[in-house]
């Protein structure tokens, strides 16, 4: 099993897609943090407490979750696209074994993204506040925000892989991921908060303390995330074991 996980791990990091996606996500986070600092400076021209902006700057790195999800999704769907999934099944000792190895490798890749994002998020308050002659105030809330960001990145990677396994087609999978991330969760939260906060994206937002009053309390959000991942894994597994391969 170790060899199989190693091979799946190697497939994830093969090619240039991962670093292009990661670089784009880092750029988005940097731009978001720069915007947060500017907003805060406009709101508090005299300075004041920096505890809130410190947590906000850390929270801004949640967007790496999208990169982790896309990288996992690409790794899965490109195998369906080029037919390599059939060879993976033939050489891995069975579909269930392969699926387990893929998901474990994806958890690992999510952890890599989470650690990198965690490191960048942790230093970002010092970097972004330095130019404004302000010192960050690291509080317990900041720590929990950082842990929440890192957890959602790992969950996002698994979710991306599950979407890829369910949909199989690369472009369609990415569209579903982006539309669900940017439109469905947020839209439902505005139109029907009771339903919207149960979407996986809004549950993630709760975990990284997204700041919307309609979001679930964190323990409930963690439960919702577990249900989404559990249900997604069950459906993906069932279909992967039954459906014909390309």
């Amino acid at each position, binding site marked *: 099993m170790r*060899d199989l996980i190693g091979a799946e791990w190697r497939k994830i990091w093969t090619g240039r897609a991962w670093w292009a996606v990661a670089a784009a996500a880092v750029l988005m986070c940097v731009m978001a943090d720069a915007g947060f600092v500017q907003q805060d400076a406009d709101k508090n021209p005299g300075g004041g407490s920096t505890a809130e902006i410190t947590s906000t700057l850390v929270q801004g790195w949640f967007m790496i979750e999208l990169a982790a999800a896309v990288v996992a999704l690409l790794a899965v769907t490109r195998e369906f696209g080029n037919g390599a999934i059939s060879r993976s099944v033939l050489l891995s000792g069975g579909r269930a074994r392969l699926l387990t190895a893929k998901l474990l490798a994806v958890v690992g890749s999510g952890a890599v993204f989470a650690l990198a994002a965690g490191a960048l998020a942790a230093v970002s308050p010092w970097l972004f506040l330095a130019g404004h002659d302000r010192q960050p105030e690291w509080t317990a809330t900041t720590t929990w925000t950082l842990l929440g960001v890192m957890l959602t990145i790992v969950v996002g990677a698994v979710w991306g892989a599950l979407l890829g396994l369910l949909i199989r087609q690369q472009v369609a999978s990415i569209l579903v991921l982006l539309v669900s991330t940017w439109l469905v969760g947020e839209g439902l939260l505005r139109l029907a908060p009771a339903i919207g906060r149960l979407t996986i994206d809004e549950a993630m937002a709760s975990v990284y303390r997204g700041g919307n009053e309609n979001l679930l309390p964190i323990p409930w959000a963690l439960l919702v995330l577990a249900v989404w991942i559990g249900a997604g894994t069950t459906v993906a597994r069932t279909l992967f074991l039954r459906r014909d391969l390309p």
Partner: protein
Amino acid sequence: MTDAIDITGLTKRYGELTAVDDVSFTVRSGRVVGLLGRNGAGKTTTLRMLLGLARPTAGSATIFGHPYAQLPGAAHRVGVSIDGIGPSAAASGRADLRIWAQTCGLPRTRVDDVLEQVGLASDAHRRLRDYSQGMRQRHALATALLADPELLILDEPANGLDPDGIRWLRELLRSLADEGRTVLVSSHILAEVEQMADDIVILQKTLRYSGTAAELTRNGELSLESRFFDLADPTVKEDVRA
């Protein structure tokens, strides 16, 4: 001795379309078997069902007495090169083979061995996308040979090979069979199959023939080509000519 492959009543339907209809045949161990049929005759679909990549609508297929998914050590016993199964997204030929070697727990040295065997050792650093069709066929064959399997299942391995490559392939498959391995090879190139196959299976959605090449050609009195067209649907042949 257990047959290497046993296919019984295999059927595959896609809605209204029947791709393979009630096909049964066996492949004896240590033989080179040519699987013949026109395009769309169901050769690849039959092989995919045999390998568990597609679910049969009816019937069963076993390798060494087990469905592929339940065959102990399947990845080490069966080498496969089938149309539609591409390489990984790895950049070079060697990197791709290393991924597959790792997948089935083989040492890296095995990659160099098969690259040498298929004549790609000096090109293994090149990008897969820059490979010619013939090189891709050799690469696919290298992947199939990685685990030094006792059964090889090859789908149109001669496609894209030049005359030298075709001769090389024929000699390679013959030498593998001489070592006691079983080879099931589908092909359009009847003359090639005639030269290397011990047994012949002819498919045209249904089974048209399964037996020795000698019986089919009456010990060489008739050509494989003429027997193929006699047995494969003659009306389809007429349609093609029209």
